[in-house]
């Protein structure tokens, strides 16, 4: 899904996809896994690829989303968003509780510091 999402705004080549995922999210993938995944997505018809002669002197393989890939990504994004919002609701009390704990811990630390004075 992340690899598909990185292509939402246009075509990229493998290394750009890896760098994009690294900078846009904390997803640092083992580089070796990205290329086989791209290969699979292409054979499933979600991606298209073309070799483009670059100024670097050698051609690069650019990937882009197909129509099928685009609609699949849309579905996946919707499913993911509803899943993660449900999970966030579930975790809200936990986060709130630990924030309160930290606040009270901070207060008691302050008190302890005052005692010796």
């Amino acid at each position: 899904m992340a690899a598909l999402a990185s292509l939402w705004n246009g075509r990229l080549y493998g290394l750009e996809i890896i760098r994009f995922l690294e900078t846009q999210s904390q997803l640092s993938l083992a580089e070796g896994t990205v290329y086989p995944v791209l290969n699979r997505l292409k054979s499933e018809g979600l991606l298209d690829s073309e070799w483009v002669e670059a100024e670097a002197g050698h051609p690069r393989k650019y990937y882009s989303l197909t129509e099928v890939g685009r609609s699949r990504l849309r579905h996946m994004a919707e499913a993911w968003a509803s899943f993660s919002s449900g999970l966030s609701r579930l975790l809200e009390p936990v986060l709130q509780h630990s924030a309160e704990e930290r606040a009270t811990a901070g207060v008691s630390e302050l008190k302890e510091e005052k005692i010796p004075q």
Partner: protein
Amino acid sequence: MNSEMQNDKYLTVLRSHLGTLTAAEREEIVREIAAHIRDSAGEPGASVESVLLRLGPAEDLAAQYRDGLLMRRASRSVSPLLLLRAALRLATKSVSGIFVFFCSVFGYAFGAGFVFIALAKSIVPAHAGAWVQDGRLVAMGAFEYGIPPSAHEILGVWIIPLGLIAGSLTLVLTTFLIRNSLKLSQRLQERL
């Protein structure tokens, strides 16, 4: 070893481990990885050595491509051999994969067993079937000897259609189980 030799060696190993793919696919992959190494090693602070390290061993990289192909082929296939191979690959990756593999081995064995009994009954009726003694199943299959004399046969010739139905159902179910597990595992990977 200088960086050019390292590069060449990596690509040679990669190519030689991509044997199950077509020649065209193989060359395309090697070309793409070669471009990656060139681009990546050209970045500031990078070297061919560090790039190859990040890519991981060429054998592993090739194995990922081969697995992808195997899974794709198997999830559309009905061949027990292909499906079992794919299930075995799944078993090397996760605990649920091991479970799926064992289920498929049992599924195929039982399915084939039922069909075998049905066929044996129609060829050598006296030696094949299911026998019970004291309410327990003591023998089922095709035997030369070894059936307890006090046991009596159940089902008779009905074991032929029943065996065929049970056998083929088990085989079909096993095929579905493996194919769906493969699809599910690909779905999970898709989060990437």
